[in-house]
């Protein structure tokens, strides 16, 4: 038995709080557009090109994403984007995405030479996996973006990918379903998503 079993006043309050607001389809459209804009970045472009011939949904995604990115630019230009928290801001929509707005600003502030991607090698040991890819904030956690190559002995996977200098959170996606940390890298708690990620610092040589 709980508190509410004994207390009609409390139960009545709970019933009041359970009332669900009606579905606002305009709000749903805004959410979907914002999400698509947030994923539409330079890192996504190869995926869009690669998938363009595959099906209708990806073309729709691309179209909605482009429209949403334009809408986001419009919002920012008109000063209508409210402050506070992480937003699919213009920097996110037009530049490679990063974990926080602060990082995005830092990335934008460095010179072109400093922001030039650096080749970074990732190695992962898993003999049973059929497919492994590197996913991280540098490729918007897209498992199709950086598929790793299996070594000749079959147990080691590796990939060399260009990454913008800075601190990045990443992991390995095993068989497109299991997110695994890099056992050789420090890990950090992702405060937003409640999961851990591995950390790599990418710098100029």
């Amino acid at each position: 038995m709980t508190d509410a079993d004994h207390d009609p006043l409390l139960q009545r309050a709970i019933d009041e709080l359970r009332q669900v607001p009606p579905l606002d389809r305009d709000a749903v459209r805004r959410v979907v557009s914002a999400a698509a804009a947030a994923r539409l970045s330079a890192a996504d472009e190869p995926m869009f090109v690669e998938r363009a011939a595959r099906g209708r949904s990806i073309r729709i995604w691309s179209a909605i994403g482009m429209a949403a990115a334009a809408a986001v630019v419009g919002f920012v230009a008109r000063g209508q984007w409210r402050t506070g928290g992480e937003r699919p801001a213009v920097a996110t929509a037009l530049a490679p995405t990063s974990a926080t707005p602060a990082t995005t600003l830092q990335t934008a502030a460095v010179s072109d030479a400093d922001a030039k991607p650096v080749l970074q090698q990732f190695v992962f040991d898993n003999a049973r996996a059929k497919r492994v890819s590197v996913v991280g904030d540098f490729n918007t956690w897209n498992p199709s973006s950086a598929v790793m190559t299996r070594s000749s002995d079959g147990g080691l996977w590796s990939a060399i990918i260009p990454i913008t200098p800075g601190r990045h959170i990443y992991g390995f996606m095993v068989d497109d379903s299991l997110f695994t940390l890099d056992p050789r890298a420090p890990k950090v708690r992702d405060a937003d998503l409640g999961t851990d990620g591995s950390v790599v610092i990418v710098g100029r040589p």
Partner: protein
Amino acid sequence: MTRPSQARLGLKTAGRGNHLTTSPFSLQRPAFAAALDPKTISRAKLGDIDAFTAIVEAYHSRCLRFARAMLRNPDDAEDMVQEAFVRLYRALPRYEERQRFESWLFQILGNCCRTANTAARRHDVQTVEDDDVLARVPSPDMPDTQFDHEWGDDVRRALADVPDYNREIFLLHYIEGFAYDEIERMTGIKQSALKMRVKRASDMLRTRLAERYG
């Protein structure tokens, strides 16, 4: 005799005493909404925007209800729900299907709301320093004709008095229907502590409402 406030609530007194009787409440936690088709989530994971739209349509209203009750500034609820869905979409490739999708979504949304409340609290501290101004600010503890004394408003105002850390667990359990073991997995807080938080939130809510409707 039925007091006006009780009549509005549909509560009736029995005999001469002040004993309230209502229809029995058989359900304490709401039943979960029909689970989303796992294929929809898998398709969204692979970037299918139609599947993601279906997810947003399925959960947007519930998320909005939760955010409005959680946030110090309920007007920010829609923005916060949008932010949670954007984060979810970006993190979808990392979603493991052995997790319950709904728990994961509310975990993200809870984090967003907590962050917003922290920022709002900091803002309050920085901006309200004048005692004269504070004295004029209407509060639920003092009579003010500007307050709308409707039941729904009173409930929400009473809930807003419950500390954030107790209110969140109360909402997850009683309003969103998560079992304690699931909330434990979502928050990392032990079940005994969760039950205590829900009890404290319930006690405070009941006390606040009883001042007017008891």
